[in-house]
C-alpha cells in the first residue's frame, strides 16, 4: 500500500504526515508513506490541501484528520 500526503509544506501538512505515520504504526500495516509538495501533482488529485491519497484514491482533503480517523479509513480499505 502506498500512502501519499499532498501539501505544499505548511504546518497542517506536517501534522497530517505525522498522524498518518502514527496510524500506520498502530495498525501495524505495511505501507510506504510519501509526501508530494509539487503543486502540479497535487492539483491532479485535490484542490484543497492537505490531502491524503491511498494508492490512487483520495481519502481525505482540506483537513487534518486525526490518527483515529485515518485508522478508520485505512482499515476499511
Amino acid at each position, binding site marked *: 500500500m502506498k500512502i501519499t500526503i499532498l501539501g505544499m509544506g505548511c504546518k*497542517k501538512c506536517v501534522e497530517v504526515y505525522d498522524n498518518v505515520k502514527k496510524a500506520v504504526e498502530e495498525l501495524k500495516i505495511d505501507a510506504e508513506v510519501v509526501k508530494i509538495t509539487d*503543486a502540479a501533482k*497535487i*492539483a*491532479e488529485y*485535490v*484542490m*484543497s490541501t492537505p490531502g491524503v491519497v491511498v494508492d490512487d484514491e*483520495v481519502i481525505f482533503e*482540506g483537513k487534518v484528520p486525526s490518527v483515529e480517523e485515518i485508522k478508520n479509513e485505512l482499515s476499511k480499505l
Partner: protein
Amino acid sequence: MFGWLDYGARYIVENVLNMSMDTAIGSSVHFFIYDSLKIVILLSIMIFSISYIRSYFPPEKTKKILERYSGVSGNIMASLLGTVTPFCSCSSVPIFIGFIEAGVPLGVTLSFLITSPIVNEAAFAVLLASFGWQIAMIYVVSGVIIGVVGGLIIGKLGMENQVEEYVYSIRSRARKIKELTQKERLKFAYDSTRDIVKRVWLYILIGIGIGAIIHGYAPEEVLAKYAGPENPLAVIFATIIAVPLYSNALGTIPIAEALIGKGVGIGTALAFMMATTALSFPEAVLLRKVIKPKLIAVFFGITSIAIVITGYLFNILL
C-alpha cells in the same frame, strides 16, 4: 446583545478584584475580560455557521459553478464564493490550477483569490464583536468589491501569458464530488470550529491584552494626531506596517478596536486589518509556483491600492 457580559465583567472587576472602573487598571482589566469572552463566543458561533455553509461549496463545486458564469457576473460570483472558502493560504495554488484548468478565466480566478484571504469568517467574527454589525458588513462588502474590481482589471490587462505554462497542461483526474450527509456537515463545522479556535485563540488574547493596555493607558491626543482621520498618510502607513504581520492578523483587531477608541480613524484600522490578511509574503512565495513575477506584482499592487482606497473611503464616510 452582550449587555449581560459587560455586566458580568464589571462585577468581576469591582466586586471580585476590588478595583474601580474609573482607574486605568480597572478599565484595562474590564476590557480584557469582556473582550476575550465576547470574541471567543462570537468566533465559535461564526466559524461554526460559515463552516456549515462551506460544506456545500468545496472548491470542486465552486469551480463547477464558475464555469457557468462569464463576464462581470463571473467576477462577482467568484468574489462572493471567495468569502466562504478556506482559511489556509496553502490551498490557493491547487485551487488556482484547478480553476484555470477548468477554463475559468484568469480575471475571475483572481477575483476569487483576492477576496478569499481578505474576507474570512474569523476576522468577521472578531470585527462583529469589536465594532458591531455595520462595520463587519462593510468589511465583507468592501472585500468583495476589491476582489471584483481587481479581477476585472487583471482580466482586462490580458495577462494569460503570465501564468506558468505547465498550469495549462495539467489534467486532473475526474472525480465525483462526495455528497455529505447532514451529520457529516455538522461534524465538519464542529471540527473546523475547534481547529480554528485552537489555532487563533492565543493571538487574539495577546491582541486583546495589548488592546487593553492601550485602552487604559495610551495618550489620546498623540494617537489622534498621528493616526487620526485627518492625517492623510496614516492609511498608507497602516497598510505598509500590516504586511509582515500575517500570522497575527486576528490579534490586530482588538488592538485596532482600542486604537479607534483613542481617536485612530476607522478606515485606517480597516486598511490595516485587510492588509494583514490579504498581502502576505508567504502567499506571494506560494503563488510564484503558478504565476510569473509580473502578475504577482500586479496582483499585490492592485490589492494594496484597493485597500488603501477603501481605508480613505471609510475615514471620510464614517
